């Protein structure tokens, strides 16, 4: 009996050791499997990337030597596809962003630029000398990039393949490519999908045009004055203890970042705002209060928002879009000049449906773009524009609108609200040329409607 007891401990320990070892081997094998699997996925993406860059380069070369605009459009289209695919593959490789930033940007912009050129060719125009030069430049960079990628690939193959290696090598080598691309700066064409039904996220044309000098005028204000601006704007909404907590710089608008307490808001529900230094306008305002039961309807909320804008000095604003959710309503306002809706001059207001508090204000579009425009008479008549629409579409409404273009200009268009099948669209016909500029598909959510 004594003897048996003596062996108990070693036996238990022995079994535990064997158990742990088996478990450990299993874990090791499993993690090696995962590692290999991941490795192979990344390898594949890397090979795909090389393939796409090479193809983009070849297609671009073919486009440049094409005699007819049709052939050119065909090859440019292929270039667009290959560039975007390459960009997509590159961005999903586990490489350091700082090292491949310019390459990613280059691939995007090659796609963007070729898209613009495709559109131009499809309208029957020939590319001018400057555009051909840009294409040549793009081609030579694409060439450089694919050469580097092939070198990198050969290196990896020669050294034996491992994802860890790939990551290290790629980070070092692409750095060199990166440096050479730093001084290249193409126009960024944001809207790639011209003439294709595009989803509206927050009302038509609310995307702000970045990298543009604001048209804002006025004296620079001081920190204390900024506090006064907020105090005055919300004088009837019980805001207290306004504090300037920081500055905003290196953006289109330099300004002050303010926070304040508001009566009725709970703990940690301070309101915040950005005030521009120039002219002292409210750039954005956020009130994070959780709202209660709805008491107001849409029209009452729009009235409140309109009055609020008038007290801030924004006259002639018309609501173009509303969406209500979770007890609040978001209203987009555009400036109206001579019965033309000017979409770039956009202000958004959010109203609480329980007590009519202003929950949010966003004026960047307006402050960026607003000025009195010379709006020319349309060259083509409404009926002529209507003929450009598909006959299956049922027109519900038509009006003149100024819309932004990808080239950061504005064009005068007829805006048709049409019903086709289940869906409603906004179709914009250029009031000078009769070309179709834009199609927007309206996604109607439960409470979101377009105000016409």
């Amino acid at each position: 009996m004594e003897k048996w007891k003596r062996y108990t401990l070693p036996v238990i320990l022995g079994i535990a050791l064997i158990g742990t070892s088996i478990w450990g081997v299993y874990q090791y094998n499993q993690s090696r499997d995962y590692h290999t699997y991941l490795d192979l996925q990344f390898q594949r993406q890397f090979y795909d990337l090389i393939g796409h860059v090479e193809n983009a380069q070849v297609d671009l070369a073919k486009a440049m030597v094409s005699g007819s605009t049709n052939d050119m459009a065909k090859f440019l289209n292929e270039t667009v596809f290959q560039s975007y695919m390459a960009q997509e593959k590159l961005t999903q490789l586990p490489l350091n962003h700082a090292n491949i930033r310019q390459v990613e940007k280059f691939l995007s912009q090659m796609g963007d630029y070729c898209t613009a050129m495709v559109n131009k060719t499809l309208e029957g125009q020939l590319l001018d000398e400057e555009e051909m030069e840009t294409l040549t430049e793009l081609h030579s960079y694409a060439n450089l990039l694919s050469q580097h990628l092939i070198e990198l690939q050969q290196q990896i193959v020669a050294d034996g393949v491992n994802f860890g290696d790939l990551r290290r090598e790629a980070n070092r080598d692409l750095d060199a490519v990166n440096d050479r691309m730093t001084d290249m700066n193409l126009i960024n064409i944001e809207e790639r999908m011209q003439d294709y039904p595009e989803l509206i996220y927050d009302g038509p044309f609310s995307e702000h045009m970045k990298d543009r000098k604001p048209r804002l005028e006025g004296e620079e204000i001081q920190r204390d004055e900024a506090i006064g601006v907020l105090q005055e704007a919300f004088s009837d909404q019980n805001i207290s203890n306004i504090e300037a907590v920081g500055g905003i710089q290196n953006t289109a608008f330099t300004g002050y970042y303010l926070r304040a307490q508001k009566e009725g808001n709970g703990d940690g529900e301070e309101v915040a705002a950005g005030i521009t230094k120039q002219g002292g306008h409210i750039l954005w305002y956020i009130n994070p209060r959780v709202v209660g039961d709805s008491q107001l309807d849409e029209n009452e909320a729009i009235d409140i928002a309109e009055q609020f804008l008038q007290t801030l000095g924004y006259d002639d604003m018309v609501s173009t879009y509303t969406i209500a959710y979770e007890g609040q309503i978001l209203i987009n306002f555009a400036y109206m000049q001579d019965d033309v809706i000017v979409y770039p001059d956009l202000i958004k207001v959010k109203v609480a449906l329980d007590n009519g508090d202003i929950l949010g204000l966003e004026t960047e579009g307006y402050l960026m773009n607003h000025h009195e425009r010379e709006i020319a008479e349309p060259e083509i008549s409404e009926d002529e524009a209507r003929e450009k629409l598909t006959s299956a579409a049922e027109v519900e409404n038509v009006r003149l609108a100024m819309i932004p273009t990808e080239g950061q200009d504005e064009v005068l268009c007829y805006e048709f609200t049409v019903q086709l099948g289940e869906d409603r669209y906004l179709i914009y016909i250029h009031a000078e040329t009769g070309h179709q500029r834009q199609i927007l598909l309206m996604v109607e959510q439960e409470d979101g409607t377009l105000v016409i």
Partner: protein
Amino acid sequence: MKKNKVLSIALLLVMTLSFLSYVIIDDVHGQNIGWGSTGAEVRTIQTRLSNWGYYDGPISGTYGPQTYEAVRLFQRRNGLTVDGIVGPQTRAAIGLPRAGGGTSAPASGGVSRSDDVHLLARTIHAEARGEPYEGQVAVGAVVLNRVRNPAFPNTMAGVVYQPCAFEPVKRGTINEQPDDSAYRAARDALNGWDPTGGAIYFWNPATATSQWIWTREISLRIGRHVFAH
């Protein structure tokens, strides 16, 4: 004496083994709905309870006292724990989807972007919980600014899941269920609020390790985060 020793060693072993084995945490479930909750799910609850005769208040989408009483009544009659909170069991009894979010499906034939709201809310929750509300909106805005920026992927999923981009994605905390405030911040960011004026980077100076990140132009600081171009 000896018996005690054996027992204690066996205990020690069990503890070691259980320490070695995986701890499985399943924290992905639908949000509990209770006092102060708002949104489409509350509306659904109110509609159903109203249809079944438990509730006679307005279908407001806000969980107030009347909804609370109705839920308690429903729970009492259906043999559930009477706490006035719509947790997993009450949820199942009312017939709501198990892992629900806060947004509604679109009514018509269009395409829904509620997936975007969920993904953005999860990112905001993982990156900026406990930050001031405008700081949460700002984090959402950075993700959206990246989608538009040529140097980044072109879809929200591409941006969020880009390798080496967001720390919580690497750690897996991105899969946690976001709170209400993250959802509201995601909505505001999608609706165009951007306190950063177009920033594409943000970091916490206390934990950031990259030297390169400090070469960016800083636009402002909100809470613990620095936002930059």
